[in-house]
């Protein structure tokens, strides 16, 4: 299985393809089956701006979500008191 960081929820994604249109990197393609979630074709070309999420009409219903890739996670102190 290749790298993937954008996940759709079949039950709430209406297949409107707003994310396909808005993606600056052209990372998605519409699903050949109408009404189904788009396909993430080029995940490694993502700029991680999140416009696919912030401009999704069904975002409140969790239709689309991003899991931040491991190597791009921040480094922070989990609990300041413990660390000091």
């Amino acid at each position: 299985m290749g790298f993937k960081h954008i996940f759709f929820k079949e039950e709430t994604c209406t297949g409107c393809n707003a994310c396909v249109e808005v993606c600056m990197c052209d990372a998605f393609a519409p699903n050949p089956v109408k009404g189904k979630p788009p396909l993430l074709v080029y995940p490694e070309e993502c700029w991680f701006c999140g416009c696919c999420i912030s401009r999704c009409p069904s975002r409140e219903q969790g239709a689309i979500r991003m899991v931040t890739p491991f190597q791009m996670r921040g480094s922070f102190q989990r609990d300041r008191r413990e660390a000091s």
Partner: protein
Amino acid sequence: MKHLNLVPIETDVLVMGGGLAGCMAAIRAAEEESVRVTLVDKSNTLASGCAASGIDHVWSYIPPVHEKMGYTLEDMAEDHRVGTSYGFFRRDLFTLAAGTMYERVLDLEGFGIRFRYEDSKIPGGFRIVPQFHSVPTSFNFDGGPLKPVLTKEARRRGVQIVNRVQMTDLLVREGQIAGAVGVSNRTGDIYFFRSKSAVLSSGRSNRLSRNPTGFDFNTRMPSPMSGDGTSMAIRAGLPVINIEFLSNILGLGPCGNYNPNYGDPRNTVQPAARIVDGRGNVIVPRTQFYDWESLGQVKWTEAVRQQWLADRKAWRGARAGLVKRHASGEGPFFLDFSEASDEEIAYIEWSIRHEGKGTQFLRYFLGEEGADLRRNRQEYAGLWPREISGTAAKGLWVDKNLETEIRNLFGAGDEVGGLPWQASPGAFTQGWHAGAMAARRAKEQRSLLQPERETVARRAQMCDAMVNGSDGFHWKEVEIGVQNLMDFYCGDVRSEGLLKRGLERIEDAKQAPLRAENPHELGRCLDVMSIIDNAELVLRSSLERKESRPGPLGFVRADYPDQDDKNWLVFLAIRKDEHGRFNFAKLPVDP
């Protein structure tokens, strides 16, 4: 794949690149009656360019506030020239940006962008924070929805928006713009535009260096921007300045994917964090805030500038010092918000939400990690690729009306060189001005020129070979190869020997055949061709500039280690003549 179709489009004003500058140009041009405007974007104007996912700040001279301080536009110009541009300064571009941005803010408010807040203590109800000048000059605003809003305004004025077409060639006839060629990265169709005037606003060149996170497209500024405008301009014989300033300007910064702009105590999220070491010792204190209560009581004086310059020097020192401290084993360093009040945290989250990848940062930081700004100190470390940043002010050399040497062709935004950190004010104001100029020229001209068709045919043939040929490299192989050679031969330390070898190697990249399996990959192949052109210009200009300049420009020639203001405090312009030879000119900076 099948043979590529030719799509002809005739218009009056052609705008190439639909970021902030391009959208503003199209909106302004379309305000003129009976002027047809076409706006082309390689992505979608709803989310493209540096403001794709929003910006939360824009600098300006703000008359209702700055007049009360006794701070003039000339005072601000001098602040910018000395403290922000480090001498690489075009006064005309500054005056256009600082002097007209307030009018553009009022326009943006008219479009529905929010700039005023009930809790503000500042005249007008604004939020104004310090950024590049000795007094606060940057509006903080709800800029998250900028691109959808500007797209709507453009459509409302009848602008024809052509998305997913990347521009490849300028068509010139007898020294005047006649049109341009583009390629659709969705269909592979070749677009043949004819226009009476044009605006070039394709932005920065952002994929010239390997990315340490392992994701090549995880550049700090948007990765689709591959310097297409610079590439087109050079091939059309136009001069480009400052392109040698590809450097690592950032040193340490908040690490990971997100640069939510809250970490630098001198950045535009105010109040911000302070920087502490692992034991909690304060390395860089929090910013001192402007006392708005006393606005108008104390007038600005030269002493304010001198204090600001001293602070700025200390801050730059602190930042460079961090890198040095880190190297001597004193790290790690952290951004510390532990003393921030609830009100400040609410403000910081609001500000982050409207800027860049901020929405996703908050979702990640608060959601995925379950973290808390106050309790969980973020490490100040950073893994950044080198970039041609806002400090470099790389781009087209234009006249005071933003016109290039090709008549009726104007530049706007980051496409234009000469004003460091012109950033969004540059884009808003130059876009507006270029749009007005291009519309005027279009009205003056009766009919479209007939451009030569050879360039269109050649581009179609080249694309056809890439999509229908069986041999060739995948675009990514060549792109990574070019980035590697740039990092090796044109990295943090340069020299004549290395740069010359880099130029030999770039020839190999130019000769490498590319193959595309579909229109999307065809678009990427065209990106790579732009990247190669840009890389070559960086190498050539780096070879020509025989001096070193310390950070933030970070230009180091091992064979010319000293800064040489007498000979090199100039804009270095590179151009290609009709025989394919590169020429240089030293253009004066403004005093």
